[in-house]
């Protein structure tokens, strides 16, 4: 191909040049068509997933899903799983966000080229992509083994997933803030921590909030880390120191059951969690996007 590009210069033979040009443009059209096809395939996957969820889950959507607890038979609902997911996600986010915020602040404002800073950034990036099932195993080893499954352990596992997401967005957003803004705060006599908390955080708020929303969306659908930590619970329980139900775990337990009612519940749960997660993502991207 590169040979044909060089040969495409002023040609002695107009016919050869024409042929060459035609074949180059044909290749170009073929590649373009393939790229459009790839995009269509990608979008078709998303469409197929959403369509399947609506088709199989939409039919089972009713008030009893939100009022009844998980049980066999036509009266089963997902109330305990919904409550469990909300509680564990909320606690996990409440634990993970402040830590992630402080780590991001450290990386952006204090570490400047230090070895510790580079190590923390590296480790945070590793945690960001580490298999979530291993985080579940870790929390099992530390908090569950020999003591029993608890909702708190589930929330801690989710918090460990929240931290690196918040770290990344916080650091990125704080770095975007112009130095002049910090200098202005310092010139007014504000100590460094006040300039960070009262000037930098508000300026970076949109970005940080986006990160937190994306983190919530990510952990709300996590299954693997909860398998060994909060375990699931067929009854309504608000006690975080006991095993706790959650939507992903209920889906995992019911999807492979022979009982058609339970499979139906699994699809309803899948519909709820997916549209919840996608809605959070859309809010994070569209509403909170910095107006550039």
């Amino acid at each position, binding site marked *: 191909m590169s040979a044909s*590009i060089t040969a495409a210069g002023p040609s002695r033979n107009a016919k050869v040049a024409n042929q060459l040009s035609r074949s*180059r*443009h044909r*290749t*170009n059209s073929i*590649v*373009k068509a*393939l*790229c*459009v*096809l*790839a*995009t269509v395939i*990608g*979008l078709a*996957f*998303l469409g*197929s*997933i959403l369509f*399947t*969820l609506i088709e*199989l889950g939409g039919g089972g959507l009713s008030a009893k899903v939100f009022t009844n607890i998980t049980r066999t038979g036509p009266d089963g609902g997902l109330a305990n799983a919904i409550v469990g997911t909300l509680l564990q996600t909320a606690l996990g986010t409440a634990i993970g966000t402040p*830590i992630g915020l*402080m*780590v991001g602040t450290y990386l952006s404002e*204090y*570490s400047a080229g230090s070895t*510790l800073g580079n*190590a*923390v950034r*590296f*480790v945070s990036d*590793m*945690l960001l*992509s*580490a*298999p*979530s099932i*291993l985080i579940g*195993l*870790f929390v099992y080893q530390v908090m569950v*083994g020999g003591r029993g499954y608890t909702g708190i352990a589930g929330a801690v596992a989710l918090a*460990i997933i929240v*931290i*690196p997401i918040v770290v990344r967005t916080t650091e990125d957003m704080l770095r975007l803030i112009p130095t002049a803004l910090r200098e202005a705060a310092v010139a007014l006599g504000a*100590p*460094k*921590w006040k300039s960070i908390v009262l000037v930098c955080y508000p300026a970076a708020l949109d970005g940080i909030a986006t990160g937190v929303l994306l983190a919530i*969306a990510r952990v709300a*659908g996590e*299954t*693997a880390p909860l*398998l*060994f930590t909060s375990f699931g619970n067929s009854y309504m329980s608000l006690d975080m120191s006991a095993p706790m139900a959650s939507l992903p775990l209920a889906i995992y337990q019911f999807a492979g059951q022979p009982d058609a009612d339970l499979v139906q519940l*699994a699809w309803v749960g*899948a519909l709820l*969690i997916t549209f919840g997660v*996608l809605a959070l*993502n859309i809010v994070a*991207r569209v509403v909170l996007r910095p107006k550039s």
Partner: protein
Amino acid sequence: MSQTLVPPRKAARSFKSLSGDAIFSFLAAASGVLVLLLLGGIIVELFIGALPAFQAFGLDFIWNVDWDPNQAIFGAAVPIYGTILTSVIAILIAVPVAFGIAFYLTELAPNWFRRPVGTAVELLAAVPSIIYGMWGLLVIAPFMAQYVQPGIIDAVDGIPLLETLFQGPARGKGVFTAALILAVMIIPFIAATMRDVFMTVPPVFKESAYGVGCTTWEVMRSIVIPYTRVSVVGGIMLALGRALGETMAVTFVIGNANRISPNLFGSGATIASLVALNFGEAQQGSLLLSSLLAIGFILFVISFIVLAISRALLKPKAVK
């Protein structure tokens, strides 16, 4: 303001703000150290838990193909093989599609169309993995069994190597379907990285190429790809790291059979799927639990290496 009053007040204020600064910077640094301890804790806890298995089986643990809870003989060879095989096939399927999407989004799509398509691709990445598992089990696996696998099996019949790779029966579930689901999951990651690094190519380079009469594809091939090659490979490694540890989607569709087989349409197991499925039966302090933690530790080491390479490759461009 009188001179005599200033020093004590100034001293008091600077003491106060100094302590505020000290507390805040201490908290920030301590949180950083906490993250270090977290990763260190994961490594150490997994290793401590895995120790009984490593002591019982030695290095053979890695090569042993048995996984027999009844006789308490455990080996990691099958799940390691399954993990690497599914991830590599997933990459082979995902990279061309992701490249096509990234190319479309950066060069071909009309401007007003880029944002919605880009967002849709990002939403594909946000779908929880358990949903991919259910979708794979109920939509993709039957589709494969009915339309795709029989055709491929017939087509390769009699061709030496391919015949062994694609054998019947066409059950839908299996290594290939698991790899396909993984591919769908990582396409958005690779596409997003490629799109972002393609955007870093200085426009003047591309304009020069267009100026001498290059077609869009020639600009992509000769300017954009060479310029972004390292980052693209880094993005692919990042996706590989994700695919290696993916649990739920794979557990639903891989068929969960503990064997090494060249037949891609047969059942298999990955480290994550084996841990998820066997954990319920593992008693506290049992060799089974220890062996599960041991393969978890191996998964950690593999993903750590892949992710570290990916980070090293992605870094130079990120700094630029």
